């Protein structure tokens, strides 16, 4: 079964790293100017709510 994952809008992300701390599953990694979401993402949506820039959203 494929789980929903969050998607990063590169045009809005300012690479602040705040979302990384909010993920209970350690699914987010900030590599300088790239925010990665890995397979541990459950789609819980916590980081989506946190992001000050609105750069995170559920995958369509």
């Amino acid at each position, binding site marked *: 079964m494929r789980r929903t994952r969050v998607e990063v809008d590169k045009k809005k992300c300012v690479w602040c*790293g*705040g979302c*990384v701390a909010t993920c209970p599953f350690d699914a987010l990694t900030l590599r300088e100017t790239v925010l990665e979401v890995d397979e541990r993402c459950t789609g819980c949506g916590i980081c989506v709510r946190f992001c000050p820039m*609105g750069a995170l959203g559920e995958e369509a």
Partner: protein
Amino acid sequence: MRYDVVVVGAGPAGSSAAREAALKGTKVLLLEKRQEIGSPVRCAEGVGKAGLEKCEIKPDPKWIACEMKGAKLHSPNDAVVELSESLAGNEVGYVLERKIFDRELAAMAAEAGAEITVKSMVTGLIKKDGKIKGIRVLSNGEEIGIETDLVIAADGVESKVARWAGIDTSLKLKDMESCAQYLMAGVECEPDYTHFYIGSCYSPGGYVWVFPKGGTKANVGIGVLGSRIPKGSPGFAKRLLDQFIEKHSHYAKGKRLELIGGGVPVTSPLERSVADNLMVVGDAARHTDPATGGGIINGIRGGRLAGKVGAEAVEEQNFSQVFLSKYERAWKEAFGDSLERSLLVKDVLINLDDPSFDGIADSLAGYGFEELGLLGIIDALQEKHPELLEVFESI
């Protein structure tokens, strides 16, 4: 490659730890994933004078943008309470140029003998029989392993290193401020005062700040408590900030030179800040002041303490959690109480409604700020709004 101590992250906490350990003759490596230490800034750049003194750092015009006389607190109906620098606490005194400040701290670590590399991201811990024996790092595209008996995790709010060691550093939305800030030019603001706009009409569970940076420049930012962000409203913090600026014409005429974001822990510090072969410092250890969101000073103070204990551990060749607990006791003694007090203050503040903030501001507005010690504040409240005193009794 082998080092006595590896410090992950060259923010104020990491550079201070590296310097302190290197000063004692320890072989230290400081790793920073960014290509440029200090940039991009994730900070409003306010520090207190007493705080810098505690860090034994002499103020240097190179990294001071502005000196502050005090703070002005704005209530929802814009009653203004003035606080002197000494009363306003840890985040009022100077507004820094952190790009320069952070680099200066790293340079001080280098001068003390620490090795430093940038564009070097730590990607994991090397463990043998469950014990930390080193770190893996992606340095300029190359994966390398570095052996060490002691890792100091100074990786800021992201705080991954401690997670890899089994310490849960994740933050609940109620324990975290979601922040956005513009560096603006062409704004009209009093140069010698930091401004705080407090009340849920500005920011639910947080505040808006305006910190002058010399001339017509200022950091204009917002922190919103994560749990107060309504569901299904992406980019809430930035949107509220934009609305605030639009509503205040003296700020609205400014131009935006820089946009930054960030997360600030506003909770108790990590229960366990040490493990075998590991110490956690600064934002990674949640050493930020939960009432104000300031973390530079505690980062430096905790970093220095960890660096000292790290050097002792190397000398004694004892990297056990028990030995490293010396660091935990030291930071608790240095600022543990103040973090606890601030947490109480934060819990009161986030539960005050806007009429209460107006009532408090109204009670205090007429007083000169020299007179307003804590007792003065209580007297003033007693006179005009005794019902609000209850709120403070819990602190």
